[in-house]
């Protein structure tokens, strides 16, 4: 992105000034080198988002922002339903409620290392991953509707996990407002065999250890100590979410014409929040969120079983589960007044600071855990939400490293087998359903997650708490 087209507001904050179509300015939070490396398309897409009806304050990009479908990935935008605000499937993404769950294991790196290979092999057997994989759970239509309204709460009621897992899941594992009648039969039929599966692409299940602690009080509240072993589960709403996104691109495309909403890119198709089409999309999207929460809950259950099999003394607890592809109804202060806004976060993590009612009791004094996925060869981070982030970006932070290279370019440069063997030489065990997937996910195809996290920290969006190093990873 050309810096001369931006106005610098601070060391880690930039403004794209309003043009004639933009209703609000756009803001980019990142250090100079990350902003320079962002493609021009991010600027164009942010400007397009800033032109949508009812947008409040600014269209916002996180430090890991990159080109996306309609909205940039790493994009945040809040819309006011009382000011003709819109809701957009492009502002959520195809993988509704894709997110990360981190599990504490009660084990240390030294305890796990001798049995790491058996552990990852067993997890690879038990947690279905890759194209065409099926879960052990087979659902009938009425049962799937229960998943879509019940989310992770459904999973726990069915015996997949513990009640205490829910307290540490965003929305306590179940987003209100889901209506399965707004989800197509095709979307449901695609999901009957996919509950409890990891998927492919950038989804993974990773064994990590805490290498470094940056903020002791938050680490203590989160139950983190140096050397602890953590499991990270990164996946979303599988085929159901994809199909909801696909179905509603058509629905919202028609609605946009009906309500005469000017858009600059087809993928920005949207409808007023207060319209039958907009309301139906929200209800369907909430089903997608619940599907993703159920999915990560079932995978948690499978993971816990494997840990107990191999390490009888393991105490696998849900640290936190947070999504990074959502539209949420949240209260925020706008010009001194509390307003109910529809906050779209696409490739951006909610990062509420201390005191917010949405945060689990255990974390309310410090802020919510913000889980940032890196690559299989580098590191991941746990951050904590800060009050400053709410004023800057509706309480949002980055979500991961963000790709620096297309999948096609990565595939030309690396071979999956070689990537896996190089990781093994570095002591990181990779189990991949597809060599192609492993090549596309080569660590060098991503931005430096540490730079992204440092920018997030320095910008005041969220504070660094802990750095996690990969030990073994299942790639879908």
């Amino acid at each position, binding site marked *: 992105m050309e810096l001369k087209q931006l106005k610098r507001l601070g060391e880690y904050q930039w403004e794209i000034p309003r043009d004639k179509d933009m209703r609000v300015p756009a803001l980019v939070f990142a250090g100079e080198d990350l902003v320079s490396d962002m493609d021009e398309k991010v600027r164009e897409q942010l400007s397009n988002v800033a032109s949508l009806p009812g947008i409040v304050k600014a269209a916002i990009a996180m430090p890991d922002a990159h080109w996306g479908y309609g909205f940039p990935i790493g994009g945040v935008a809040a819309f006011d339903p009382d000011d003709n605000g819109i809701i957009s499937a492009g502002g959520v993404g195809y993988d509704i409620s894709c997110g990360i769950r981190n599990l504490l294991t009660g084990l240390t790196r030294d305890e796990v290392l001798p049995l790491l290979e058996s552990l990852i092999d067993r997890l690879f057997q038990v947690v279905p991953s890759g194209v065409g994989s099926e879960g052990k759970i087979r659902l009938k239509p009425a049962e799937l509707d229960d998943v879509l309204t019940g989310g992770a709460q459904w999973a726990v009621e069915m015996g997949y996990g513990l009640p205490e897992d829910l307290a540490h899941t965003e929305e306590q594992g179940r987003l209100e407002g889901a209506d399965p009648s707004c989800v197509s039969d095709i979307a449901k039929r695609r999901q009957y065999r996919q509950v409890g599966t990891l998927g492919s692409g950038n989804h993974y299940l990773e064994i990590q250890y805490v290498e470094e602690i940056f903020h002791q009080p938050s680490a203590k509240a989160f139950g983190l100590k140096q050397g602890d072993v953590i499991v990270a589960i990164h996946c979303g709403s599988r085929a159901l979410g994809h199909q909801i996104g696909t179905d509603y691109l058509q629905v919202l495309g028609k609605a946009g014409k009906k309500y005469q909403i000017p858009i600059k890119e*087809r993928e920005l198709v949207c409808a007023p929040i207060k319209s039958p089409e907009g309301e139906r999309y929200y209800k369907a999207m909430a089903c997608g969120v619940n599907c993703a929460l159920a999915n990560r809950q079932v995978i948690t259950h499978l993971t816990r079983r494997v840990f107990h099999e191999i390490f009888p003394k393991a105490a696998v607890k849900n640290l936190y589960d947070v999504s990074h592809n959502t539209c949420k109804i949240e209260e925020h202060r706008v010009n001194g007044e509390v307003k109910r806004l529809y906050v779209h976060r696409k490739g951006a993590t909610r990062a509420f600071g201390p005191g917010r009612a949405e945060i689990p009791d255990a974390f309310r004094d410090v802020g919510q855990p913000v889980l940032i996925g890196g690559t299989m060869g580098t590191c991941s981070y746990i951050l904590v939400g800060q009050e400053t982030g709410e004023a800057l970006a509706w309480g949002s932070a980055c979500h991961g490293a963000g790709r620096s290279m297309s999948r096609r370019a990565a595939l030309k440069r690396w071979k999956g087998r070689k990537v896996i063997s190089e990781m093994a030489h570095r002591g990181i065990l990779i189990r991949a359903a*597809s060599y192609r997937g492993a090549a596309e996910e080569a660590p060098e195809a991503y931005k430096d997650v540490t730079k992204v996290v440092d920018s997030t920290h320095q910008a005041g969006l969220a504070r660094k708490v802990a750095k996690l190093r990969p030990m073994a990873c299942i790639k879908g």
Partner: protein
Amino acid sequence: MFSLLVEDLDTVIPEKSVTISCGSFDMEGLFVAWLNSLLAESDIQRLIFSDFKVKTQDLTLTGTAMGEPFDFSRHQRGVEVKGATFTELAVRQDGDWWIAQCVVDV
């Protein structure tokens, strides 16, 4: 698109056929709807497709997709395609040929 799901699409035998109909609000939308219908049928019927025939009339498409069930002893897994998107979307007729393109999300 299906050459992303399996490494070598030539190993897929077009022995089963599925008929698919879809509609949209314009020709470009119809192309995306067709690709997404193929992905959905592939998921639901657990088939991988390698051969296709389509007919369009107004803004409705009727097509046949041919393929076979996933067999991971013969088909090497690629990556899932989440959906066909409106990005870089273009549909045009060039003589007897139709040329259509879009980005698919993986």
